[in-house]
């Protein structure tokens, strides 16, 4: 079981967290957006081998945050609350 650092609660078991998708995958704006762009946003994921930036939610405290971790070694590199404060 992995240990994820919640920026608010500290290190907790992974079972308390829920995945929220890639970080930085911004939703396209505007009606005239081409279909490809929408398809990219919805369906394409980079699935990197190595460092990944992801959004997670700690279900116990309900906070969303960005976590950077290595998908090969499962090392957690950083975890930052959305908005930038509370870096852990």
């Amino acid at each position, binding site marked *: 079981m992995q*240990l994820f650092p919640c920026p608010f609660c500290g290190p907790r078991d*992974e079972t308390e967290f829920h995945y929220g998708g890639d970080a*930085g995958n*911004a939703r396209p704006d505007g009606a005239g957006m081409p279909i490809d762009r929408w398809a990219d946003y919805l369906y394409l994921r980079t699935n990197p081998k190595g460092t990944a*930036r992801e*959004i997670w939610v700690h279900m116990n405290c309900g906070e969303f945050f*960005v976590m950077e971790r290595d998908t090969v*070694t499962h090392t957690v590199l950083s975890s930052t609350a959305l908005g930038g404060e509370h870096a852990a």
Partner: protein
Amino acid sequence: MTASRLATGGSAIDRSRAIRFSFDGATVHGFAGDTIASALLAGNVAVVGRSFKYHRPRGIWGAGVEEPNALVDIGGSVPATPNTRATTEPARDGLVAKSVNATPSALADRNAFLDRFSRFIPAAFYYKTFMWPDWHMFEPRIRAMAGLGKVDTDWTSPSTADQINHHCDLLVVGAGPAGLAAAKLASGAGLSVTLVDDQLRPGGSLGHRTSEIDGRPAAVWSEETVAELAAASHLILPSTTAFGIYDHNLVGLNQRHRDGRPDTLWRVRPRQIVLATGAIERPLPFANNDLPGIMSADAALAYLRRHAVLVGRRIVVATNNDNAYEVAEALAEAGAEVTLVDLRRDGTPATPANVRLVKGRALASANGKLRVEGVTLDDGTRVDADCVLVSGGWTPTIHLFGQAKGKLAWSEARAAFLPGDPVDGIAVAGAAAGAVSLSEVFAGAGKAVASLGQTTTAVPRSTGAEATGGILAAWPMPGSKGRIWIDYQNDVTVKDVELAARENFVSVEHLKRYTTLGMATDQGKTSNLPGLALMAGITGRTVPEVGTTTYRPPFTPVPLASFAGARVGELMAPVRRLPLESVHRANGAVFQEYGGWLRPAHYGGGDAERSIADEARRGASVGRAVRRFDSRQDRGDRTKGGRIRRFHLLQHHVDAEARPLPLWLHAVGKWRGLRRRRAGAPGRASFRRVVLVLACHCRACAAGGMAPGPLRAWRRLHPQRHRRNGDADRFGAERPETARNAGSRPLAGRCRPPAYGGRPWHLCRRRGPHRPRQLHRRQELRNLDPG
């Protein structure tokens, strides 16, 4: 073999407390502190089981977790447990032990004839032979002939297993010299220490090897150290095996109890770990090296010193390393007639007193039928013996290090894999790290604790004679004569490995699966390294080039009951009930379980399919209400909707004049057909009837189409066809084709309307929670992220 109990000695046994248990129907006497194996040896029981495939007679090999042969099903006064290692299971009064894979008993097994046909049943024989007409026709008979212990399916535990979560600064695995020293040093540095050991008593090799620490006998030092640690309120767990290291160094412990309680599962989250897991002695390759009476030399010494059991009167000790010399000396001192056969010509330690030493010779074969009666050396000399002890070198127990993704490094000097680059938060010490002498062990323990960032003071000193690590590797050779066992428990011989190599299963992982080498309940603790060294020899590679199979938990078998803990019976999959269940029942609901939830399947009893269809038809008269309901659903994912969000309401406008479409047609999403009908219909005014269908949101159901989540996205892609507002419009008349929507023909071809490809929810057979995906909130949050 004429093993016997000596009149005096035995550090582990309490002669004032005699116990009695049965093995294969015969009574065995022992003392408190005996294991089943030591009591059997004391009672001169040679054959304790039959091998997995050929039903060969097998005796006790080791004195610990590595035991491949002496598996017994136990019951009687203790919880019924199959495939227990007799070498680690304490003997208790009233215990009933039965040998595995033997009918009626290990000594007189009905299927022993199979061994005569062994020539015709090599590795993979079954899979090649019983292909036609169908393997499954033969499988039950074959499975009944092979296999190990029997599970008593009627037995239920009177209590549930405990599960404990535990935190500490340092977890020390193994309470041998390295573990005790590391624990002592860490305790001195002010850390909270948890010390676990799989033996009944801490001490490891200090319990039977002669040595002196800080001027005191090793056994005294280890007892003092344990007492010291206990006094400093560190947690010490004997009879506890660390069976696995999981992500971020979560360690699973299996604690066994002697009072009949089920095993306890510990989940330990230490800040740091010291692995002082020791090493396991390897067998030597010679023909018939699986006969009862052939044992690990170190085990024989352990039985002598701990249980006062002398394993034979005329003993041959075969070795390729220095460690067996102490064993030979001790056995000669205890009154046995000992012949020591050393593979090495020179570089050997001094010949022990009263021991006949034969240098530069190996064993060619062991002779005997139901027990070993003698050996033949490679020069043809025959030596009579009632017990043969072998020491083929030491395999460090690096399973946990391997599980933690540690890389291994081959050591030619030790003829073994040692831990390579360090893993974060884990240090390896003692024999597991390749140390031989106590000085090396203590220096290694000091270094291990220091490597975890702790200052160490007063490292224990070895003040007695030191063990030496001289070894000449003796691996099984291809083309050897006779049947040379590599994996005792799964009956894999040199010839099987050669066969695998001939058929190009040369990768170590393929070798394992093809021959079942190392796949038994002992997971190849004694056999893996000889097996891959042999494969290296056959294919002309070095041992590190062949590599090891992946280390996976568990290190020793762990009962499922301890993983289940309190979640048994009704609690295994608790039924979840709706808050309004009584209201539903009052309204005549017929309940069914949907993924753990007890929900109304339909109302009014009778045939489920018809009731739902009726209800759907009745929905026509409440069309407006339904539409409102549906539009609320559409927003439901974003606002916090009620319980009903678990299902999605589909709303279809169907031609009032046409026969109502059968329910399944809506459910399986025959949208195109529907649309075509609609396209041919006169106009919007005739689409009056509303059919209500509940569509299941679970992934299995949605697999036929797209998941419900992307529906809105799909709509966004095709705004012309499905405007977001105005649900009445959504499935309404065909909108005129304009320049803008010309390119999007979503209903034909690959972009099907999403979501409702599955079964109607009431027909869903999935056993998971039926939860709609909540994409929206997260998607919006994602937009907040500046990166």
